[in-house]
Each structure stands twice: as structure tokens, then as C-alpha cells.
């Protein structure tokens, strides 16, 4: 009975495998509507020459594999069906043939040479980062991205905006759960954009599948890559190098817009930057700083030191009752602004505005029962930074 079962399953399997591969070939419209659920099967075509070339090569490879698979599995299933002992087959005795061996060494080599041709062309294109119209510096941090529009004096952090409660099931998950950020990277379509990719702590990797761009962000090194986006749209991506516990929680959102819209956005952004600088000169009250500080702390610090300031034993120190938070202001500022070398504590001086830094430090000295009553103003932070 079981051998009949075997035979049945064997008959059923051949078409099944072919079906699987045929399923792979299913491709949806290139942009906008991202396939999901059961329709999510294949690499998207994407919106740049890089992503299209990858897609094309991918499809060629897949069909080559399907073709080889049909021949190889075909012969195999034929033997399994036709050459079984239960049909009274006597085994043949042949066991070598130099001719056949040569043949199935040479044919694959030829196929490979044929495949190497487009692969080489596409790779050479990928490496051509010359003559870019603009440069964006991308810096990976645990667990967020910083974008710097080089030469424009505009930079900002982009971090996950999905609330923790949605992750832990205490509130509903929105459409772009874990693919939404506080501020997207805005880019013009049709321009050759060069990305300079680096990291400040561990290795991250910046990937947006529709742009066909994936580049490792490595501390101490700057990698180059580029893209020219063909169509306006919102393109979402992820960090693709394991970077610690927040690895799944530092998505990328690129907002590609027509050039004039981009210019308008950039001008507004510059105004906002200037306003922020102005704000740093203002003197705040303790209450104002505490409110701002709580918000900024939860955004930038709570991932490690936790919302209640108690840290994670063995990994991240508590701030509640800690020597730094209850010690000299200068030491506290030094730790936050310059980080602690050789540990997970980053240098936040370059990541956060003076206002946020001042608010966070003030908050840490006066929250969770810490009761220093002292206020650190943005100007103090500025002075500290300039003093070093």
C-alpha cells in the first residue's frame, strides 16, 4: 500500500516542482502597489536601471534553472517511473563514459560564460558612481538612519515611527507597520544621486529593493553607490545587516518627487534648520525642558536605558540613581555628547540638536526620582561643544 502511495506522490511531485518555479516567475506591476499576501512571490522590477537590470538577470537565471531542472528532473523521474524493480526491470551495467562526462562539463561551462556576459555589464554599470548630480551621506546608527544632503547644510535622523504598543499588540498595526519613519529621505527623480554610506557603531546595510540599491554601512569606512530614480513614489526598505536588537526596527522610506517639488522641500527644510538654530539661543524653564526631554529621551535613549531609566542588567546601565546622572554636569554632558568609546553608548553630539541634548540631560537629572534640580540650557551644550 505504501509503495502505491510513493508512486502517487512521485507522479504528483513533478508538476508540483514545475509549478513552484512557474509561481516564482509571477511578477506584479513595477511600482506603487506592492504585492502582498499570497501574491508576494517575486523580485519587483523597481524604478531604476539598477533594479531593472537585477530583475532582468534574475529572470534569465530563473528560466535557465527551470530549463536545466526540467531536463535533469525529467530524466530522474523517468527513471523512477520506468526503471523500477517492481516492473521487472533488470539493471544495466554501464558505469562510465568519458564522452558523456566531457559533455556535461563543457555544456555548463558554456551556459555560465553566456550568463557571465550580462552579469559583468550590469556590475560595471553599478560601480560607475562618477558624475553624480548630488551627494547624500547615509549614516547608520543603532537603530536609525541619518541623512545628510552634502553641500546643502541639511541633515536629519530618520527612525521608526511605529509605536511600541503596535509591536507588542496593545494597539492596532497600521498599513505600513515597521515600514514607516519619522522623516523620509526626500529625493528628486531623474537625477543621478550618489550615496556615501557609513555607520557610527556596528555594521548596517541600507537597502531599498525598488531602487536596486543595497550597500553595507561600515564604521570607519565610506562606501559609494548611486541611483537614478525614474518614477515619483514612496519606496520602502530595510536594514539588511544584523545590527543588534533593533535590527528589524530601522526601516527606510524614500520619497521620490519631481525636481521642482524637491527644490521647494529643500528650501523649506533650510528655513526649519535656521529656526532650530535660533531656538538654541533661547532660555527654557525646567518644565519646558522636562516635557521636551521626556519626548526626546523616549525617542533616542529609551531603546537601551529603558523608559523607566532602569536599563537592562548586564547590558545597558541604569540612569535612575546613576553616578553620572547624579554627578557633575560636565561629565554627564561629556557622556551624552561624546559617547563612551568601546561601548554601545553613542556620541549623540552629532545626532541631536542642542535643544534636544539639553532637554535630555535635564530630564535624566530630574526624572524617575533623580532630583538634581539643575537645568542644562541649549547654550550650555553649545558652549561645551565649542569648548572641546
Amino acid at each position, binding site marked *: 500500500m505504501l509503495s502505491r502511495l510513493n508512486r502517487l506522490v512521485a507522479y504528483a511531485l513533478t508538476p508540483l516542482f514545475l509549478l513552484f518555479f512557474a509561481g516564482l516567475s509571477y511578477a506584479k506591476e513595477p511600482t506603487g502597489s506592492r504585492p502582498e*499576501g499570497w501574491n508576494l512571490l517575486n523580485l519587483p522590477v523597481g524604478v531604476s536601471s539598477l533594479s531593472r537590470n537585477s530583475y532582468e538577470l534574475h529572470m534569465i537565471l530563473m528560466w535557465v534553472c527551470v530549463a536545466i531542472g526540467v531536463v535533469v528532473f525529467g530524466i530522474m523521474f523517468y527513471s523512477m517511473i520506468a526503471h523500477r524493480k517492481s516492473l521487472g526491470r533488470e539493471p544495466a551495467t*554501464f558505469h562510465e563514459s568519458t564522452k558523456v562526462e566531457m559533455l556535461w562539463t563543457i555544456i555548463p561551462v558554456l551556459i555560465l560564460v553566456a550568463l557571465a556576459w550580462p552579469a559583468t555589464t550590469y556590475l560595471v554599470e553599478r560601480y560607475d558612481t562618477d558624475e553624480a548630480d548630488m551627494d547624500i551621506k547615509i549614516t547608520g546608527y543603532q537603530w536609525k538612519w541619518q541623512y545628510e544632503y552634502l553641500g546643502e547644510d541639511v541633515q536629519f535622523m530618520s527612525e521608526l515611527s511605529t509605536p511600541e504598543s503596535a509591536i507588542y499588540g496593545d494597539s492596532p498595526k497600521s498599513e505600513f507597520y515597521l515600514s514607516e519613519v519619522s522623516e523620509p529621505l526626500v529625493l528628486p527623480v531623474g537625477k543621478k544621486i550618489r550615496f556615501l554610506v557609513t555607520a557610527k557603531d556596528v*555594521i548596517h546595510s541600507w537597502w531599498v529593493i525598488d531602487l536596486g540599491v543595497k*550597500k553595507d554601512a561600515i564604521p570607519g569606512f565610506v562606501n559609494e553607490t548611486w541611483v537614478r530614480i525614474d518614477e515619483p513614489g514612496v519606496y520602502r526598505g530595510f536594514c539588511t545587516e544584523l545590527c543588534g536588537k533593533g535590527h528589524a526596527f530601522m526601516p527606510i522610506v524614500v520619497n521620490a518627487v519631481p525636481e521642482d517639488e524637491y527644490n521647494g522641500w529643500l528650501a523649506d527644510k533650510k528655513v526649519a534648520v535656521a529656526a532650530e538654530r535660533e531656538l538654541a539661543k533661547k532660555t527654557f524653564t525646567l518644565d519646558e525642558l522636562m516635557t521636551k526631554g521626556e519626548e526626546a529621551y523616549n525617542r533616542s535613549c529609551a531603546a537601551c536605558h529603558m523608559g523607566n531609566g532602569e536599563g537592562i542588567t548586564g547590558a545597558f546601565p541604569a540612569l535612575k540613581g546613576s553616578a553620572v546622572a547624579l554627578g557633575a554636569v560636565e561629565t554627564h554632558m561629556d557622556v551624552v555628547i561624546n559617547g563612551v568609546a568601546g561601548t554601545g553608548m553613542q556620541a549623540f553630539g552629532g545626532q541631536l540638536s542642542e535643544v534636544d541634548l539639553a532637554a535630555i540631560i535635564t530630564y535624566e537629572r530630574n526624572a524617575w526620582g533623580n532630583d538634581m534640580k539643575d537645568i542644562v540650557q541649549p547654550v550650555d551644550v553649545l558652549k561645551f561643544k565649542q569648548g572641546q
Partner: protein
Amino acid sequence: MAYGPEKGIGRWLFSTNHKDIGTMYLWFSFAMFLLGGFFAMVIRAELFEPGMQIVNPEFFNQMTTMHGLVMVFGAIMPSFVGLANWLIPMQIGAPDMALPRLNNLSFWILPFGFTLLASTLFMEGGAPNFGWTFYAPLSTTYAPSTVNFFIFGVHIIGASSIMGSINIIATVLNLRAPGMTLMKMPLFVWTWLITAFLLVAVMPVLAGTVTMMLMDINFGTSFFDAAGGGDPVLFQHVFWFFGHPEVYIIILPAFGVVSAVIPTFSRKPLFGYSSMVYATSAIAFLSFIVWAHHMFTVGMPLAGELYFMYATMLIAVPTGVKVFNWITTMFRGSLTFETPMLYAIAFIILFTIGGFTGLMMAMAPVDIQYHDTYFIVSHFHYVMVAGAVFAMTSGIYYWLPKWTGKMYNEAMGKAQFWVSFIGFNIAFFPQHFLGLAGMPRRYADYSLQFAEWNMVSSIGAFMYGAAQLFFLYNVISTIIAGKPAPQEKTWEGAEGLEWTLSSPPPYHSFTTPPQVK
């Protein structure tokens, strides 16, 4: 001295007998397989649906890391060493391994290595959480304080592998029966001989890598720290210089098993024996010169990237030769489909699918899209689970009657195969889709468009997991209550010296060397 095993625990603790040590290796690796499998079940349960439900992201990373480490170093590698211990002396007509005391030592340090590694789960700071590839600086500057336990664990495990390999090389080169020339050795012996050389070559590199980490973490060097003049990418080069040969260390002995099983149940000699030997050697050689295909996104110079792409594509040629040879062996044979054969056939099909995706990933401009996604996860489970583990399972069903003198229950074996096979494919085929559509690997949580296939994958994984308990049951019930295996011809088509011995074989396999014609 009496002929036969010592009584009591001493038989195992002080054993210098290749069969007893082989048995211990096999049981140890199966225990590790269940432990690593348990970690996998935690991972798949957490990924069953979007959101964090069971563990937190930090612990999730510990699970993926421990799963990989335990499966690679604890389950697959020692299981094939166990198989080698059992079979090599019996297949070359020797009484035992050449270096029996070394054999004892190489097994007995393993449990210590894994105790060091697993104990971190109960320590402050937790288990390693930086992936089985432990890229610096996540595994150095940013590592949990328990990383030193991991480092010493790897040292011990590596030492064990090196000793085991030296033993295999010494045995194969010195203890062959008269008339057994190298080109008459069963392929399993050949693949292990080549694997042993690979191990001796790359295990020291792994030891060097973790030692550099140890120095960086504790003694102020900066091999992998750019701030001190080091280079995090250097880590990846040295790691993959070990790591790529490592994947062939895992698969070559599996090739050997399949090359024994397929001819037996095709009742026809293996097609292209000598080309199999050459292909294996070619794969072993190529495996040293392709390592950076794991690093197509790190920003290598164009020339380097092109070179590693071409070299990797070449590996498909000898790999293809092997597959073609197996299929031609089946062609015009007289086939039956006992459990070992089912596993071997599944191996060929699924390993070939893994080879296909391997070829696709060899192409740098598209690997940039595949890299570090579920597509990779799918690829290496097709080659390591449906490859190495299926071959191992095939081998166990195949030689169990020889080892124990008892026959397993064929219907139960087949049923176990189908649960395994179907579960495996449900678990891992959809991961191709997930990866292609953009889901990165090592993610504790994911966006909603990935929900459906992840749920399917988890269901398949549970099914595959259950099949392994079923396997354990089959093996134990065979040992305890199996029908006696036929003494003469366990398998009608089986060839080789091991089948000339009684079932179970005598304690010292061949006390007088057989003549091989």
C-alpha cells in the same frame, strides 16, 4: 584481555573503540539537533504572525545565533564524524581508527565546548546574539559580556574537529586492507578524506579569527576596530575564508552517503566513480577561492567583485557533474524505494534546487538584491537541511540494520520520510518568495505584507520538527524491538566491505585484513 567492550560507564568514558565513539558522536549530535531544533521552533513561533508575542527582539537574536551555531557545529559536523567513525574502518577493512586515544579525546572535549556555549543562556547578558557569522564589531565592541565563553567554546569545538580530521587522514592513508588502492575506496571514504584536509586547513583560521576577537575585546588590540586602525571588513574576509570551505565540509560527506545509497537501490554501480573523485577534489579546491561571494555588498573593488563572481560560478560545474552522475546511476537501473533511497532521491532534488539558487546568488549584480534576505535563508536550508541532514538520515536508515542487527519498520520509515519531506518544503520554499519580495533575514518582526508566507513557513517548520521526534522514535524502537536484520543481504544491491561483516559487526571490525580484488 577479553574481547569485547568494558562493562558499565567505563565503556563510554574511556572508550577507544571506533564504534562506541561513533555511537556517542551520533547520539550527541542528535541531542544537539533537538536543542537547535527547539531554538528554531522558538524562532518560527515568534514569526508565526507580525508583532512580538513570545520573546523580545534581544532574545530572538540569541535564538537565531544559537540555532545556527548549534546546528552547524553541534549537529551536522559531529554527526558526520560519528558516521565516519563507524564506517571508515569497516569500509577500508581496518580493525579500528588509527589513533584511538585521540579519537576518545576528540569526542569527549565536545560536550565541554557546548556546555560553555549553552551556559551563556543562563548568564547575565545572555547568549551570543550576533549571528552565527558573528561579524565584528557587533561581536566585539558591542558584544554581551558572555562573548568570551563563546570564543572558548569555539576553540574547543575547533580543536575537536582538527583531532578528528587528523585521525581520519591517518586511518585512510595507513589502514587500508591489502589491495584497496585509493581509487578503489568507497566514495564516502574519499569525500571524508578530502573533508578532513579541508578541516585541517580552515579550522585554525576560525581559531585565529576568534582569538583576534578575544584580543580586541580583552587586551586592547584593534584588529577589527577602525577607530584603532583595524578593519571590520577584515573580519569578514577571515571568517569566510573559513566559512565557505566549512559549507563544503558539511556537504562533502553527505555526497559520500548518497553515492553509496543510490547505487544500492538502483542495483547498478555508481556511474563515473573517478569523475566523482575529481569533482569532489575540484569542489574542495574551489571552495578556498570563492569566499568573498558572501560579501558582495561590503564595497569591494570592481575587480575583486568580478573575480569572486566568476570563481563562484565555476563551482556549479563540478557540483553539476555530481548530480548528473547520480541520475545516470539511476537511469536504467532496477529501482526500489526503501526509506534510505527516498531520502537520497529527495536529497538530489532539493540539493539541486539549493544549487540553482546558489548559482543565482553567485551573480553579484542580482545578489545585491538577494543578499541577507530570506532568499539566502532558503538557499542554505535547501543545501544544509535537505542536503546534509537528509543525507545523514538516509545513511542512518541505510546502515542502522548493519550497526544494530535489527531492521527498522519500513512503513514507519516511509511515513517519517513523507512528513519530513513535505514539512521541509512547506517551511522553506515560501522563504524564496519572502526574500525576493524584500524580507531581510534575522528579523524579529516584519511588515504586514510578509504575514501569509511566514505563517505557512512556520506551519511547515513545526511539521518538520515533529518529523524529527518521529525519527527518534523509529531509531529507538528499532534498537529495542526491531526484527532481526538478514545476515546475508541486508540490501540486495549493497556493495562494499562493511556488508561482508556480521550484523551487528564484531567489536574490532576486521581483525585480519580482507583481500580486496
